[in-house]
């Protein structure tokens, strides 16, 4: 795993969480991220919480991109934000996308569960165009960096 954050718009750790091996969605997302100038640290399928965090620390990542299609994200994502905080990277951006729950409730309910309760930054349904998360990621990273540099000068 390597990253050269200086020359890119940001470093993103990607992976399919838990017991899921569906890679088409995340591979497409990785391709889109690279096309848009991001550095990708790819964990591939069956990635565990700890692997995301270790990779994020090692690569000084700006964000985690978590994919899941088998509905088990609901089992694997709870506690992720807390684990990040314990590891000293509590403010890392966390996005998730795919079929995140076994049942398919209204998207608003899924968003509420993952964003408001589990403290992820953004979630996306399986058919999202990769450009959408990328635009929002650019804005989020921009805002973070602006806030940090403001803090630095204060």
């Amino acid at each position, binding site marked *: 795993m390597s990253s050269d954050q200086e020359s890119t718009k940001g470093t993103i750790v990607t992976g399919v969480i838990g017991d899921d091996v569906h890679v088409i969605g995340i591979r*497409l997302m990785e391709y889109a991220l690279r096309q848009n100038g991001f550095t990708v640290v*790819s964990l*591939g*399928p069956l990635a565990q919480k700890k692997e995301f965090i270790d990779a994020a620390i090692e690569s000084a990542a700006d964000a985690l991109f978590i994919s899941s299609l088998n509905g088990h994200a609901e089992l694997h994502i709870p506690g992720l934000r807390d684990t990040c905080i314990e590891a000293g990277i509590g403010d890392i951006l966390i996005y998730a996308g795919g079929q995140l729950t076994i049942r398919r409730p209204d998207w608003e309910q899924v968003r509420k569960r993952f964003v408001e309760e589990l403290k992820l930054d953004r979630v996306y349904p399986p058919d999202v165009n990769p*450009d959408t998360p990328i635009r929002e990621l650019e804005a989020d990273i921009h805002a973070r960096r602006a806030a940090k540099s403001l803090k630095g000068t204060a």
Partner: protein
Amino acid sequence: MNTIIQPRAATLALSTERWDDARFDAERARILATWKTGADVDLNDAAAFHRSRAALTNVSRKRAWAKETGNVLLQPYGGVTTLAGQTELIRHVATEGGADIVPTTIDSQTRNLKYAAAGEALKESERQGVELLNGFPIVNHGVANTRQLVQAVDVPVEMRIGTVFPQLAVEIGFAGGMSSVTAGPIYYTAHYSRDTSFAETIPNWQYVFRLIGRYAELGVPIGLQIHGIGTSTPFPNTLLGVCCVLETLIAAAQGARSFSLDARLMGNMVQDVAGVRAIREVAEDYVCGRFGYRDAVITIDRKSWSGRYPEDMARAYGIVCYNAMSGMLAGANEFIANSVQEGVGIPAKESNADTLKAIRQVIGMMKGQHAALQAEPVENEIRLMKLEMNAILDAVLEMGEGDPARATELGFRYGLIDIPFAASRQCKNEVMVARDAEGAVRYLDPGKIPVPPEVLKYHRACLEKRETGRKRKIDYQTIVDDIFSISRGSLVID
């Protein structure tokens, strides 16, 4: 006598060089001791059993015979848990479906070395009279049961095992009279494992290839079906060809000589015909020519579409027959047949047999028809494919200082060999493809694969033609559509 413990194969430096007897014998003693049925494996007894059987019950001899006589072979997929069930399955596809080679797919517990769990499931299956595993747990069945199985039919049996740990299962299979196995280290690293490195899988498979060498020394030829690389999405057959050549070279160095190389259906007739011919030519050039294995027998088997199938069997017949037709035009030696129930799940033996009959009908009609199918586009595609495969092979072989095993490891590490949508961390996954206006698979982005400029320029022009035609750029949705288009009824959805 020193007491140094023999290191695991994986700890030795990666090399294509033939294993010396001391290394193989020590590793063999270790492997055969990993489960109790290993004790029943005796190489001389096994070779005598193989020699006692009719010549054409041997996969390798059957493939050589078919190549010489111009016969085209048929093999379905299939594997169930119990001896009775597997016997019934291979008998049915042989007698009713007319299979020339019958398969025995090994279950995933065995493939992951979980012999105790496989044994429990086998017992439960026998007790309940149901087939609980997704294949034949050959290590638990042991040598005697396997011999009973292979003797139930008068066609040869090929063992099909997707794993990075093939050694013990293959020992039992060969000792039990199976005369070929699906391989090898690249394919099963890229698609049956996430973390396992080539430094581990190449030696694990070299063990199998050296075992084949041992059988050859005892007068028993054993075959390999070489997969190369491949996913369930569209990908360039050139990448498969490159990996087939590397796997074949790694196997040949240990003494294997019978190779059936895959070529995969992608859906565009020109490219599907060109793929078979180009892979054959490049493989013969490198294996028999440049690396000097003049006695190697190389045949090409055509595998059908490996992505999603329609659930509707009638529509699936269309794919099956298109595969047979394009394979025959290309001069394929064998068809490995996904059944028409592919879109539904594990096929019943009846639909497997019916699928074989449909392909046989096409073979019967096409045999001997060497139609010049738009000779110019096909010839051009073959030329470009060979140019590309040569460029990749030469680049990675140079990197590996002429050693195919090291070339494999370094080629993947630096992304010179890559494939879209792979699960393994050994693949960079930086390459991306899309279909052109006629459905041929083209590089949208070659990543770090050293695709020659002429080839890349042609691929880009083909993709631009599609964009112009539909007045829309190839976007992410197009890539997804190209993956599922065949199951939805047409190759190109615009």
